[in-house]
């Protein structure tokens, strides 16, 4: 669908037109009012006092605005925004009328003109600040990027109108009466605000205020805005950036006026010159606003847009420094005026977006009014000091401007970095990683926490304390270990206590451990045997004694401990006949488990132990026993045998373990076991992964094995095989790579390859969207007059399957982004762009806009930033140069694609559609490998033939 021409030209999406028009009119009237009252104020002030008093007026503005902001922010926090704006506009109308009446009465006291000057200065900043604050509620971040440019243009147009209006009417109506037109415009603004509030801002304001109430910490309320600004790095930087800009603007203005005055001596010609360039500047600004601002913001983002103004001023100042003529003065003013109210203004407003609403409400007016006026004061003082007192000329001021611009540019870089970080923080706040808490085991305070936990804690607390003191040796801990053991005789506590007890030579627990030697829990027995053997004077003798025990359980534990010791001690390996020991254990096992009514549970648990012993002993002569256990019917036994086989790393078990990737409940253990084989088997895994004849579950499990191997080679192998024909396999490969990337931060991946994979996935996404669009559009979808009554349901199923496929595509795209950028950032961004909270979604999109490369941004952002399918399709066609496909071609593509389920849904839809011409598409799948595809093809074929018969009849 084509966008209407005006909407396309103004870059508006459906639903935005009304809000944009109202806000455009509002800013137009606001600035027009300002351009009416400002000249009146200036002429009255200068006529009454002359130029000499003007610097004092600047200083007064700075002081009074400080006091005003303090009062205003207190009130602003308590009043709903629309009411606050209405009160401001209403009181401004009242003030104008009072001023007009006083002027009619020829009241000419000196304070009155100062008051007029200061009021207009504060009014100008206040009403525009309120406008932009409201705009932040009316439009979300993404809309703002497109529409703020248009609103800026509205302001400029209002300026041009207001200026010309004053210029034309002043000779006829008189300066003073013009004020009444200003009041009239403001009444218009009040009406518009009411419409804007009910149309676009009310709901967002309510949502954000509710969220603020829930989330904002209590200590923020009542805090002075100055403290908030200077207590927050981002806000301080923002305030400094704005302040530096204002100082430079004053210096530029001075420079421009000074050059003009020195070149044009005639008063009337000077007035004409200023008048002409003021209007031309506004027009220039408007042209930039309309043609460039939105494009610059879209292409270069907030960061890029902030360089235009300082860049222009820098060029202009260098020109002034070199030539010092009127042309260079005009140029610098043109750059300054042109960019300031257009690109720079829009970029600056966007910098506010990551700031929470509550904070923004409180500090924006402070920064806009107080910082602006203070900087104006500083600019004035600088000029008095340097130009008037020290006698610096135009060149000196240019040098100062160039120096300050350098500071400005550095600030831009820092602010841009902080801007991205602020978005990152905002979206990260969803997850707090408790596992990243760091505990210092040497901290004396640790004992104060641990001792009470050991003494009176529940089992969870005791375990936590024991984990904390795993490597800590302390008399106070030693004293409490025995009591802990007696109070919590569970596996986890006993094994940890015994581990810790081994730190102390003078803590002998052997006597109390005797009853646990034949405990039914194998891990407790192993811990007890390990403790006893470690304590024994003659370890070999102690082991031999335990290995000849009459209890099968004791022997099992002893053999496991012996095997573990044998791994590190050659003397144990050579001294113990493991094969003989195991076979004698087996005989004892048979003896003790035989009987008329065998205890199945006991036999199963002992088999599990046998498998564990076999894994620990790892003797090829005993592998046949392990093979037997690998065929056991019991899942726990099977798992233990799989683990044991993995620990042997013997080729003999490799294929059995691969086969167990297809065994229910054992897959995960099999993946872990296969990963123990390490890198050497990666080529074999890749062959199995890519073999289309291989079992689907096995193929799907292999990426998980590679992820568990966890090396650079495994990662490379996964990346090289990322593009799989089957979407489920592709998804699994990417998931595994994500896992690897999360665990190993220094993993090196081929970024250009990732970009290519991402583009390919995006191509699939946009094409799937085309197909989905075909299916949801009645005019384009297949379906003859012979369609069955089930046809709508079939089509609905196909549509749902396509939507699910799109979701999967999008997930894969974000997973690929997670390999390319910070994984956590991309995960959070994905959750928010697919979530239901509109403003969080907009934040995430803004974040992506700032983080992604230009190439990827063009592909990914259209997928998530608009719900409008037509807009997405337009982007897809532009990006991948494809035309809208025909309905039949779409079905053909689905049937030739990589997704069996989509094939099934397509075949079913064709069958129910009654479109006999599509029969050849169905026939091709009558012999499909996958049962479900074949079965549906047969069903579809039958249905089409029935319809054929009906037609024949």
């Amino acid at each position, binding site marked *: 669908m084509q966008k209407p021409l005006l909407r396309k030209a103004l870059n508006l999406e459906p639903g935005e037109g009304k809000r944009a028009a109202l806000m455009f009119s509002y800013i137009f009237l606001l600035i027009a009012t300002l351009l009416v009252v400002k000249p009146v104020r200036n002429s009255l002030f200068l006529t009454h006092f002359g130029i000499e008093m003007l610097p004092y007026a600047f200083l007064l503005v700075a002081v009074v605005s400080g006091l005003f902001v303090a009062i205003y922010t207190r009130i602003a926090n308590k009043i709903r925004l629309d009411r606050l704006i209405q009160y401001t506009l209403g009181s401004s109308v009242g003030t104008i009328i009072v001023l007009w009446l006083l002027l009619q009465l020829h009241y000419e006291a000196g304070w009155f003109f100062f008051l007029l000057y200061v009021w207009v200065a504060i009014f100008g900043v206040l009403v525009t600040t309120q406008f932009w604050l409201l705009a932040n509620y009316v439009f979300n971040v993404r809309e703002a990027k497109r529409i703020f440019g248009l609103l800026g243009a509205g302001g400029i147009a209002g300026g041009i109108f207001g200026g010309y209006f004053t210029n034309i009417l002043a000779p006829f109506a008189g300066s003073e009466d013009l004020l009444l037109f200003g009041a009239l415009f403001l009444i218009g603004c009040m009406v518009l605000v009411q419409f804007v509030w009910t149309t676009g801002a009310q709901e967002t304001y309510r949502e954000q205020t509710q969220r603020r109430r829930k989330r904002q910490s209590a200590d923020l309320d009542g805090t002075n805005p100055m403290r908030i600004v200077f207590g927050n790095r981002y806000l301080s930087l923002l305030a400094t950036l704005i302040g530096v800009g204002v100082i430079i603007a004053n210096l530029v203005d001075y420079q421009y006026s000074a050059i003009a005055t020195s070149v044009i001596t005639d008063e009337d010609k000077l007035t004409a010159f200023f008048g002409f360039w003021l209007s031309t500047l506004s027009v220039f600004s408007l042209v930039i606003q309309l043609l460039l601002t939105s494009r610059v913001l879209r292409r270069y983002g907030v960061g890029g847009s902030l360089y235009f103004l300082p860049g222009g001023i820098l060029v202009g100042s260098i020109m002034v420094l070199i030539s010092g003529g009127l042309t260079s003065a005009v140029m610098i003013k043109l750059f300054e005026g042109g960019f300031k109210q257009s690109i720079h203004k829009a970029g600056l407003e966007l910098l506010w977006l990551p700031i929470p609403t509550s904070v923004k409400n409180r500090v924006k007016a402070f920064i806009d009014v107080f910082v602006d006026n203070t900087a104006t004061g500083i600019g004035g003082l600088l000029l008095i000091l340097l130009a008037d007192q020290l006698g610096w000329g135009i060149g000196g001021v240019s040098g100062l401007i160039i120096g300050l611009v350098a500071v400005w540019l550095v600030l831009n870089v820092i602010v841009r970095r902080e801007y991205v970080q602020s978005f990152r923080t905002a979206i990260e706040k969803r997850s707090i990683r408790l596992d990243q808490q760091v505990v210092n085991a040497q901290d004396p305070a640790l004992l104060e926490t641990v001792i009470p936990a050991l003494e009176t804690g529940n089992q969870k607390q005791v375990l936590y304390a024991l984990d904390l003191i795993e490597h800590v040796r302390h008399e106070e801990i030693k004293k409490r270990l025995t009591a802990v053991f007696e109070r919590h005789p569970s596996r986890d506590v006993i094994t940890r206590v015994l581990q810790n007890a081994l730190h102390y030579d003078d803590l002998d627990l052997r006597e109390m451990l005797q009853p646990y030697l034949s405990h039914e829990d194998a891990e407790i027995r192993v811990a007890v045997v390990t403790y006893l053997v470690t304590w024994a004077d003659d370890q070999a003798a102690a082991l031999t004694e335990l290995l000849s025990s009459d209890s099968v359980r004791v022997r099992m534990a002893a053999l496991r401990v012996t095997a573990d010791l044998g791994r590190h001690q050659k003397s144990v390996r050579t001294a113990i006949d493991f094969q003989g020991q195991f076979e004698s254990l087996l005989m004892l096992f048979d003896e003790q488990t035989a009987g008329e009514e065998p205890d199945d549970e006991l036999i199963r648990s002992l088999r599990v132990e046998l498998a564990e012993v076999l894994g620990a002993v790892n003797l090829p002569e005993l592998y046949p026993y392990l093979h037997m256990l690998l065929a056991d019917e019991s899942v726990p036994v099977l798992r233990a045998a799989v683990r044991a086989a993995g620990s042997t790393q013997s080729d003999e078990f490799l294929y059995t373990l691969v086969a167990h990737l297809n065994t*229910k*409940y054992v*897959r995960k253990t099999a993946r872990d076991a296969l990963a123990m084989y390490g890198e050497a088997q990666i080529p074999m895994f890749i062959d199995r992964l890519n073999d289309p004849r291989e079992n689907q*579950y096995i193929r799907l499990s292999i990426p998980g094995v590679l992820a568990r191997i966890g090396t650079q080679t495994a990662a490379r192998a996964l990346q090289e095989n990322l593009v799989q024909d089957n979407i489920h396999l592709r998804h699994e490969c990417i998931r595994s790579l994500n896992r690897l990337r999360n665990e190993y931060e220094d993993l090196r991946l081929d970024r250009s390859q990732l970009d290519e994979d991402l583009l390919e996935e995006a191509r699939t996404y946009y094409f799937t969207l085309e197909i989905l669009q075909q299916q949801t559009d009645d005019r384009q979808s297949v379906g003859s007059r012979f369609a069955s009554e*089930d046809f709508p*349901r*079939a089509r609905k*199923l196909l549509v*749902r*399957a396509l939507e*699910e496929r799109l979701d999967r595509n999008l997930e894969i795209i974000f997973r690929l982004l997670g390999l390319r950028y910070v994984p956590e950032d991309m995960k959070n961004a994905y959750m928010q762009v697919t979530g239901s909270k509109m403003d969080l979604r907009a934040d995430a999109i803004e974040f992506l806009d700032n983080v992604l490369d230009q190439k990827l941004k063009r592909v990914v952002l259209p997928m998530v930033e608009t719900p409008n399918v037509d807009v997405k399709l337009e982007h897809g066609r532009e990006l991948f140069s494809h035309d809208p496909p025909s309905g039949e071609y779409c079905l053909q593509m689905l049937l030739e694609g990589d*997704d069996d*389920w989509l094939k*099934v*849904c397509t075949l*079913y839809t064709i069958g129910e559609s009654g479109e006999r011409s599509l029969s050849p598409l169905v026939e091709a799948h009558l012999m499909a490998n996958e049962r*479900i595809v074949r*079965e*549906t093809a047969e*069903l579809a074929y039958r249905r089409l033939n029935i319809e054929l018969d009906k037609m024949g009849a």
Partner: protein
Amino acid sequence: MLTTVEKVIFLQDIDVFQSISTSDLAYLAAITEEMEADEGRVLFKEGDASDSMYMVIEGTVRLLRNDTEVMTAGFKDVFGTWALFDDEPRMVRAEVTEHARLLRIEKDDFIDLLADHVQITQGVFKAMVGRLRGLASRFNKQD
């Protein structure tokens, strides 16, 4: 007999399965068994072990507790759902009142399926949580 895709069409409207993707419903469809029952047949009695859930494709099944009718299940109605999730004995008697075609899911098959397809488990959880949320909000409104 229904094909897998026809079973999926049926299953996607069952509320406890509504959050499961259609491709995963195909796995679920694969473990459903289509059965027929004549009028008067008792599918299960009060106190029987809960081992399966049923969905009605055709016909009607009456559910009774202490010989009092609780509901009559017709086209697309489901009964015995909780059998998939707990081991409590049946609380009602299910009696076919009009020759019925039914889809049946056995608990053991269902549990096996969940073990292999974590996304199906997530879908079931999502639907259950949705039900609980619905109940909670209804209580809140009453309060």
